[in-house]
C-alpha cells in the first residue's frame, strides 16, 4: 500500500477475486467488469471482490459463485458452471473502512449529516441508510474504491436459515471505476467448476 502524505486518501494496489457464472467470466475477459447497481449492495454501485484478509479470498469467491447460482424464487439454478476471476486492482483514492481513520471519518460524516438534518425515513432501514451514506460520500468525494469487512452468507445453510450474525467473515473491495482501476490484460479466470460439485 502506498501512502501519499500530500493526499488525504490512500493509493492502493491489490488482487481481488470475483465469483460469477462462466458466461459472465467470458464477458469480463473481453470487455472488463461492468459495475453492478442496485439498492441492496454493501458499499453502493461498483464491482465487488473478495480480498485476502479475514478469510481466504479465493475460497470466498468460489463459495459466492456457487451459492449465487441458486435462484430461491424460481427454485432452480441460474447457471451450471461457476468461475472465479482474479484481477489486479489499482486505486488512487481508496476509502478504507477497515482502518481506524476510515471508520473515524465515517462516524464524523454521520455527525455532519445529522447537523445538516438528513434523517432516514421509516421506509429505509438503518443498514440501507448506512450503505447509502457510504455511496453518497464516495460519489461526492470522488473515491474510486471502498474496502470493508462484512458477514456474507456463503453457504446454503446460512441462506436457508437466514443467518444474520454481526461479526464479519470476509474482506470486500468495491471498485467504482473498473475501466480505470482494473487493467484488463491482468484479468484471469483462475477457477472453473460445477455448482453441483459440493
Amino acid at each position: 500500500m502506498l501512502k501519499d502524505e500530500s493526499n488525504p486518501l490512500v493509493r492502493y494496489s491489490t488482487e481481488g477475486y470475483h465469483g460469477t457464472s462462466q458466461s459472465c467470466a467470458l464477458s469480463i475477459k473481453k470487455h472488463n467488469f461492468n459495475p453492478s447497481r442496485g439498492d441492496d449492495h454493501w458499499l453502493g454501485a461498483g464491482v465487488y471482490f473478495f480480498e485476502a484478509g479475514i478469510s481466504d479470498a479465493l475460497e470466498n469467491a468460489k463459495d459466492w459463485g456457487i451459492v449465487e447460482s441458486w435462484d430461491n424464487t424460481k427454485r432452480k439454478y441460474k447457471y451450471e458452471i461457476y468461475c472465479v476471476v482474479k484481477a489486479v486492482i489499482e486505486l488512487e483514492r481508496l476509502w478504507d473502512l477497515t482502518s481506524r481513520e476510515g471508520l473515524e471519518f465515517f462516524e464524523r460524516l454521520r455527525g455532519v449529516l445529522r447537523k445538516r438534518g438528513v434523517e432516514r425515513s421509516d421506509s429505509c432501514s438503518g443498514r440501507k441508510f448506512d450503505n447509502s451514506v457510504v455511496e453518497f460520500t464516495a460519489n461526492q468525494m470522488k473515491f474510486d474504491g471502498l474496502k470493508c469487512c462484512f458477514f456474507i452468507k456463503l453457504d446454503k445453510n446460512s441462506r436457508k436459515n437466514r443467518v444474520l450474525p454481526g461479526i464479519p467473515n470476509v474482506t470486500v473491495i468495491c471498485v467504482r471505476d473498473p475501466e480505470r482501476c482494473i487493467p484488463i490484460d491482468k484479468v484471469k479466470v483462475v477457477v472453473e467448476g460445477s455448482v453441483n460439485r459440493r
Partner: protein
Amino acid sequence: MNVEALVQKFERIVFSMSDQELVEEFAGMGCDVKIAPPSGDGWTKIGCVTEDCQYSTRPSLTRTPVSSMSYAADSNELALAA
C-alpha cells in the same frame, strides 16, 4: 488519511446542497430521507474573557480583561494572565 481535511471538505459539499438535491441524491440510491431543520449551530457557548461578561456558562473559566491577555513568545499560544 487526513480525517479532518476530509470532514471539512464533506461538510462544505453537504451544506452547499439544497434539501431537494440531498433528497434526490439519496433517492437515486434507493434510500428515502427527510431533511429536518438544523438543530443549533453546532457550537457551545463556553464563556467570554472580556470584563464583566454576563454570558459565561463555565463557572471554572477565569474571567480576565482582554488587556491582560498575552501571547507566549516561544510557543505562540494564547496565555491568560491570572
